[in-house]
């Protein structure tokens, strides 16, 4: 992307260091150097304002943050300024922010938040959450090219995943969800890292002839509601799996939309899987209770399926290869 467009610059802490953003910017830094990569002081609000100004000067800044928690320091510049600049001053602000959701190893309350719902709430901002390596590249390219302020939220756990990434330049469109797996029994919308859990749950359910349709929204704002609605019209049942808190989050938006626009198609209540309403504990023991996984998804599935199908879940056994955390919950 930086090779194609000389206006793209990177601004962030450790922007010139190998380990920044889990090593995702160093290869580009080695190629383009400090002429395009700019180490930043610890000034999130300042950085965001500087990025907005640089965007108005004609550049396309990509601002990197090691945790989305730090974006709360930048929120005034993001929401009060960049988000509204096009509306007020008729001049769009072309920047991209990359931030990471932390998880595990005692990251704790201030390094583990999943804040997509907050950013999605501001008209003028776009929010993207890639869940696969292929989408991570394609969505980032689209985000940089998009003339609006776009926040790309990457999940720490997804950095370790392996997938097919086409070489060269390609775009994955913003605002377009992907049906990752076709199925007829229920619709599962899985956001970011929850796509991994959903995939495992679907395999387990497939073993008892329950077929899940998995949708990866990929973009949170603007949300591809049509793809979700079409799926619910087909299956009549919906479970939403989000990385953020269940309360007052993205899953609430999706559930409300479906209830408004596809009520007649619903055969059972909508279920939401998300974090409990509490800060992330540091202790790994409490982390185990905090983060929902495959078992929680399957429990939710059992609650919305008709009796005869739900009954099949009672005798569920799991093969080690297919299950990561599932321990048999019935």
């Amino acid at each position, binding site marked *: 992307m930086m090779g194609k467009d000389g206006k793209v610059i990177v601004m962030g*802490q*450790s922007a*010139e*260091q190998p*380990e920044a953003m889990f090593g995702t910017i160093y290869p580009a830094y080695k190629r383009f150097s400090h002429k395009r990569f700019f*180490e*930043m*002081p*610890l*000034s*999130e*609000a*300042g950085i965001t304002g500087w990025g907005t100004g640089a965007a108005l000067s004609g550049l396309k800044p990509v601002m990197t943050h090691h945790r989305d*928690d*730090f974006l709360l*320091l930048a929120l005034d510049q993001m929401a009060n300024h960049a988000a509204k600049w096009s509306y007020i001053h008729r001049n769009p602000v072309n920047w991209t922010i990359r931030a990471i959701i932390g998880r595990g*190893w*005692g*990251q*704790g*309350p*201030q*390094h583990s938040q999943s804040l997509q719902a907050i950013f999605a709430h501001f008209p003028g901002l776009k929010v993207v959450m890639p869940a696969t390596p292929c989408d991570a590249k394609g969505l980032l390219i689209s985000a940089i090219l998009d003339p609006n302020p776009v926040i790309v939220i990457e999940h720490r756990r997804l950095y370790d995943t392996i997938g097919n990434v086409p070489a060269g330049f390609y775009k994955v469109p913003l605002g377009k969800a992907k049906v990752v797996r076709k199925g007829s029994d229920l619709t599962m919308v899985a956001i970011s890292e929850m796509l991994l859990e959903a995939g495992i749950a679907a395999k387990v359910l497939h073993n008892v002839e329950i077929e899940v349709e998995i949708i990866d929204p990929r973009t949170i704002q603007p949300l591809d509601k049509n793809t979700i609605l079409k799926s619910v019209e087909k299956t009549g049942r919906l479970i939403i799996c989000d990385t953020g808190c269940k309360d007052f989050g993205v899953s609430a938006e999706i559930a409300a939309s479906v209830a408004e626009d596809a009520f007649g198609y619903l055969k059972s209540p909508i279920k939401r899987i998300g974090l*409990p*309403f*509490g*800060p992330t*504990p*540091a*202790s*790994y*023991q*409490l982390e185990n*209770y*905090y983060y929902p996984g495959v078992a929680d998804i399957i429990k939710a599935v059992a609650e919305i399926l008709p009796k005869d199908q739900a009954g099949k879940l009672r005798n569920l056994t799991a093969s080690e290869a297919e299950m990561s955390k599932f321990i048999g919950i019935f």
Partner: protein
Amino acid sequence: MRLNSKKNLIWMYKTMVKIRLFENEISRRWPEQEMRSPPHMCTGQEAIAVGVCASLRAVDQVIGYYRGHGYYLAKGGDPKALMAELYCKQTGSNGGKGGSMLISSPKVGYLGSSAIVAGGIPIATGLAFGNQIQNFKKVVVCFLGDAATEEGVFYESLNFAALKKLPIIYVCENNGYAVTTHIKFRRANPEKISEIPKAFGIPAYKIDGNDVEEVYRITGKAVNLALNGGGPTFIEGVTYRWYLHVGNKLDSTTGLRTQKELETWMKKDPIKRFEKQLLKNKALTLKDITDIKVRIDKLVADAFTYAKASSLPARGELLTNIYA
């Protein structure tokens, strides 16, 4: 704290050794993968935590940040509870909720810390403001790193503290780095951090942060100023952290800082330097030094034993203390 001279010197020595031996043991046992939260070691920077806390009374209050094991111990926090927190146990100083970055001990006046750079600065400032309004004769110390002076709230808080003549001491541990980035890449006029508070009329001192007696002396001046209604002081202690930003490796192993730089600073070890001084002044003998080390080794071992034997938090703890 504020003990008579000799007792105070010995206290400072013992406390620096305590911090050093705890950090050493945490580092040594880190590969066992049982302390599962990111440890930000203060090894090399002990003189600042200790020199400052030696000047405080029990009633005075401290706000720290994520490199906080030293502040916690120097203010009088229970080492057993510290280790239990690092081991993520229920008996930890913060019930296993905070981890290494967010330890505190309100009962000894170490009120809190933040894992967000500069997050604690306005909070410490407000604490001093509240103390002033209620006429509490307490001093607040706010510890911060050099990178925290790049955040906006630092300037906002300095202004407010100066305006209101708040009884607060800002102690900046300038170790020259923010993670791996040297200050010269982040700050205009990197040698002049302590000139900034002066623009607000706040007395500011740039001192050798590895000279525990100097830290103690300057903090003492600041405490007196604060208690006499003279307002805030800013102290910049120049020092160096031996370890990586987080974890148990020495930075030079990753090639991001040079071995030469590390060795130069290790030669300026604040503990060795103070030890030499105390021996010279006959405040301590070699036998005393050995005895102290033996006793602290036991303290460390007991704390680890306690932590390992403690239980992990129960499921019911997950959503406690979210609201009062």
